[in-house]
């Protein structure tokens, strides 16, 4: 095994030089003196009076014991990892055994195409993405995003005066031709402004669109990123929540598939195509073990990893030692196979939930395949008010993640037409969308308003029209991750009742 590893290392490519991507802020990060003397500590007989570390005898914890699923696999953090070290300051790199697990897991499951990639822990993907923006972007830069993007991701960079360049998506995710066109025409449309060099993409269960990008599409996108020298931030919290394409009428209780089959069915990560080290992968335990752990990791080239580490050392430091100790001991007990078993069961649960929600929609609306009808822009299925000819919204059943993204035909509502005619109303889509969201909320069902996911393109592009949004169209995001089946059904009933009223 060792010999094969050596051969692999010898032939694997190394990441290319990425220093031209790093921003002024990060370029000027000095190495951390105090962390730099750690090398001296391993000298035989050395007594260190150098670092401000409290003595572990002064920590009040005597022991800790956790019980995890399955019940027979009881992990004791204090047996596998010394509590004294989990609770102490470190170099900022975090628990070595956890980093090693992440390394082995990445190698096995994500198979990076270049050789010298590295792992660095972070406090969850919001933190990870914030750090990437702080690594690569100058104030006033532009960032490439999906046509609809997670609002928290934007809130990270909006205060830096950064704007989005939204790229259209179809059922397989980002459209390569759209990306190519945006970049090819950049100089012409933005003379004197630096071309965007960072792409934020949620390629599995895109939030909010729910699309999952297959390998062939990824290769096309990667090649374009090589052509235009783009760094890809692969923001991937839902990687294991991948589902087959929904078939109308399929069982809402699908038979679970064996773990090996599940793993084989997974689409490849962008890392598999990454020969140059231009992908920074954001992996997190939030959706697989629990968001409260505030724990995840980057996979990045050595240059980026070093600068991200320097940033962490004088900012967030390492993630919570408790979270690290618990997760490290759990993963060590489960091993990679056990973790894959866990996520494959988890995926089964979310697949059921997706199907429950679609069933509920089918129970409350008449659902027809969009291919059979010609409504411009509608894909997947179209929902009609029962016993009418009135199409209200369409949706593409998600092939990943936790959300159904519904595309509403506002012009089917008399109230919307009223707003559209009113000269005093500058943005009828926004006003109607707000009203509709509030009506849903007042009827005791909360949805994700589509405007939350509109990429920020600057103060002068805030109306639907100015931002290039479609006329008479609005979106709502429905989550199937949290409620019980009964709650979900009730929620969809309320959803339908409001729609009947308003449209």
């Amino acid at each position, binding site marked *: 095994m060792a010999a094969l590893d050596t051969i692999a290392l010898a032939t694997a490519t190394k990441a290319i030089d990425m220093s031209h991507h790093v921003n002024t802020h990060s370029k000027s990060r000095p190495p*951390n003196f105090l962390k730099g003397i750690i090398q001296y500590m391993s000298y035989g007989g050395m007594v260190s009076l150098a670092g401000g570390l409290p003595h572990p005898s002064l920590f009040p914890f005597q022991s800790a014991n956790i019980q995890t*699923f399955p019940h027979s696999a009881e992990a004791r953090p204090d047996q596998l990892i010394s509590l004294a070290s989990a609770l102490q300051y470190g170099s900022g790199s975090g628990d070595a055994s956890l980093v090693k697990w992440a390394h082995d897991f990445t190698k096995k499951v994500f198979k990076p195409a270049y050789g010298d990639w590295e792992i660095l822990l972070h406090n969850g993907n919001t933190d990870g993405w914030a750090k990437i923006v702080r690594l690569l972007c100058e104030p006033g830069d532009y960032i490439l995003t999906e046509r609809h993007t997670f609002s928290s991701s934007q809130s990270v960079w909006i205060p830096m005066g950064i704007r989005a360049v939204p790229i259209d998506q179809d059922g397989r995710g980002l459209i390569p031709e759209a990306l190519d066109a945006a970049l090819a025409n950049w100089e012409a449309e933005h003379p004197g402004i630096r071309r965007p060099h960072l792409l934020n993409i949620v390629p599995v269960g895109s939030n909010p669109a729910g699309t999952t990008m297959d390998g062939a599409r990824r290769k096309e996108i990667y090649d374009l990123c090589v052509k235009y020298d783009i760094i890809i931030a692969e923001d991937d919290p839902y990687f294991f929540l991948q589902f087959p394409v929904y078939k109308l009428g399929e069982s809402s209780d699908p038979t679970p598939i064996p773990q090996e089959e599940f793993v084989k069915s997974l689409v490849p990560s962008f890392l598999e195509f990454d020969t140059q080290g231009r992908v920074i992968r954001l992996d997190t335990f939030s959706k697989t073990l629990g968001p409260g752990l505030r724990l995840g990791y980057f996979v990045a080239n050595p240059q980026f990893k070093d600068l991200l580490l320097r940033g962490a050392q004088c900012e967030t430091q390492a993630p919570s030692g408790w979270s690290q100790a618990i997760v490290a001991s759990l993963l060590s007990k489960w091993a990679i196979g056990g973790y894959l078993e866990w996520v494959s069961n988890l995926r089964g649960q979310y697949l059921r939930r997706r199907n429950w929600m679609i069933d509920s929609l089918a129970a409350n609306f008449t659902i027809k395949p969009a291919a059979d009808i010609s409504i411009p822009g509608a894909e997947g299925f179209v929902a009609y008010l029962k016993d009418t000819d009135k199409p209200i919204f369409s949706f593409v059943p998600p092939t990943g993640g936790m959300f159904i993204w519904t595309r509403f035909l506002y012009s089917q509502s008399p109230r919307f037409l009223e707003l559209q005619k009113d000269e005093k109303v500058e943005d009828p889509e926004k006003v109607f969308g707000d009203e509709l969201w509030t009506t849903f909320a007042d009827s005791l069902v909360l949805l994700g308003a589509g405007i939350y996911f509109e990429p920020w393109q600057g103060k002068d592009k805030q109306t639907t029209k100015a931002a290039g949004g479609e006329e008479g169209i609005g979106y709502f995001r429905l989550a199937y991750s949290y*409620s019980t089946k009964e709650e979900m059904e009730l929620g969809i009933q309320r959803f339908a009742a409001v729609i009947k009223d308003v449209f």
Partner: protein
Amino acid sequence: MAPPSATDYGSIPETSELGTKKAASNILSIESLIRHPSNMKQAGQYMDRPGLISLGTGLPSSEYFPINQMEIKVPSMHKAEDPELSLSFAKRGGHGEYDLSIALNYCGGSGQAELVRFVTKHTEIVSNPPYFDWQCALSIGTTSVTEQAFRMFCERGDYILCEEYTFSSAVDTADPLGIKVAGIAMDQEGLLPQSLDEILSNWDVQIRGARKPHLLYTIPSGQNPTGATQSAQRRRDVYKIAQKHDIYILEDEPYYFLQMQPYSKNDTASIPQNSEEFLQALVPTLLSMDVDGRVMRADSFSKVVGPGLRTGWITASEQIIERFVRHNDFSTQNPSGISQIILYKILEEGWGHEGYFKWLINLRLQYTNRRNVILAACEKNLPASVVSWTPPSAGMFLWLKVDWRRHPLAEIKSLLDLEHEIFLDAVQQGVLISKGSWFLAERGVAAENMFFRLTYASASSGEIEKAIEYLGLAIRRCFSLIQ
């Protein structure tokens, strides 16, 4: 109530009448002013409505978290007969109880309410801030708070004020942000108010190439690296200067509860027997004097419970807390849910406020012992002709001053070269110490004096004694002194 929209950028909460007299736009950076509330977390305000079903956020259901139960053992602060306290908590499914199902899920940017309540009450007991709209919010440690505060209060090119020797990470953070540092002179009690006043009164925008600084970063107790502790009067004087020049203060106090018994050979000072005596023995905080609401106090559990928790909290006016929480929402969010629930169970359910103070009294005595050991070892082993120090009254650091001009090669070698020589010689002898130059606030400015920072927090008594013996040998060797 309409969902918050993308058009709300630039709007910040109204300033409150009493106490927070500052108009936020004078002190907050553009980046901070632009931060808007999280759309989705605002929708969460609806969550209290009975019967509401949320299909709005991607919260995973707690049935999918694989951690079912946790048990920790900590020392009991109440029963002498039962020295160990066992705390356990499980994932029962919510319904009001703060359990693992809540701890393992997303929570808001100010942290879990139950723990925020504890630290708020604790802050009220310790500091009783003299204005009404103060609040607390959890943090992931003061290193992170410092970075966020710099970004909240400063633009690129601004200056901040801090002690002339300071925590190096703060400078590591400020530097790349394009923030410059103006170091303020210190004496053995720390920051000198006269120096602060002088620098501000004589600030020349042309010469400095920057507007007058409006942020002071100070570590008033057991200062890192000098170990200096500002007395009550010193703090009052500093606050007055801050008022005079309208300065906002970042009060970084990770060592506040490592205030020790006074150092004297006879050691006659009585040991605090209860929380009242303990609190009376402490130097008052800047927060306790903050009539204007111009202080952000950063507290931390790192030195008192453990750095790996990555949990602390800040106290400031409601207006500033709101901006801080907005920042959290789109970066680190909140401390680890596990850290939070552990702290809550120990502090609120296990020990209570009285028990926590008991723990802190215990720490006070531990650190007192350790300090006494290192000082005795220094008196025994270090050459008084060359090395001097002020006994620290708080924290974990001893700041040794070395009279480098007495070095045989002082005429031809630089301070930095000689500092390095002593550092390496000490390593050779088997002791690792920290160079004072690492902690200079204004890097690149030539220091006049040579210092080394030693900690007495981590090594055992025996190791400390040995280490100081080695250090003595190294210094004598470097200065060609007879043993």
